[in-house]
């Protein structure tokens, strides 16, 4: 059975802190790994990773995939209250995405 496991389940930090969110997977026919941010309702796309060791960056967010370790991390530097959300990791397989349970991040001012 395919598994996508995220850790920690939840995290509370103060503004300005740096956080690292983890995602590990056991998915047959892995194609890609994606990170989404879910605030209120619709998940919004952050990154898609297909190649190991290549960091993707967008502002204060960055992510990297390690295919050998079957894992990925999402880093957020200089966190802001607007970063408070659920961060979802998903693995692309066939015609679908297999999601993890998410990490709930709360950034306190």
């Amino acid at each position, binding site marked *: 059975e395919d598994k996508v496991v995220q850790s920690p389940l939840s995290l509370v930090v103060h503004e300005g802190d740096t956080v690292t969110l983890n995602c590990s997977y056991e998915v047959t026919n892995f194609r*890609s790994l994606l990170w989404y941010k879910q605030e209120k*309702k*619709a998940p919004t796309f952050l990154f898609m990773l297909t190649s190991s060791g290549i960091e993707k960056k967008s502002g204060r967010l960055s992510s990297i995939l390690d295919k050998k370790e079957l894992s990925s991390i999402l880093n957020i530097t200089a966190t802001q209250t607007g970063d408070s959300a659920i961060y979802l990791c998903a693995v692309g397989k066939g*015609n*679908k995405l297999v*999601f993890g*349970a998410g990490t709930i991040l709360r950034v306190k001012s």
Partner: protein
Amino acid sequence: EPEVTQTPSHQVTQMGQEVILRCVPISNHLYFYWYRQILGQKVEFLVSFYNNEISEKSEIFDDQFSVERPDGSNFTLKIRSTKLEDSAMYFCASSPQGPRGEKLFFGSGTQLSVL
């Protein structure tokens, strides 16, 4: 920025009733999906749709479920006889490139409550 729109945002129905959830994908997208999220649980894949046919479906997507693209803009999910366990947030998503492109654009969801 173009977005996926879903209607209604909330739907309350009695067990055994039929519901139709509606979605308008982004106009130049070709691949369409339904996912659902039961409260407190993971987002789960239901079905993918391309070229007017189902390309993949999950075990959840049984005979009670069907999808349709009745015209050039709408994409619907029908649940024929709702059960209590169908209560969930249902997300529609679309993609311009399908599996190779991966980047799915999600709608804001329809919260379905079955009483």
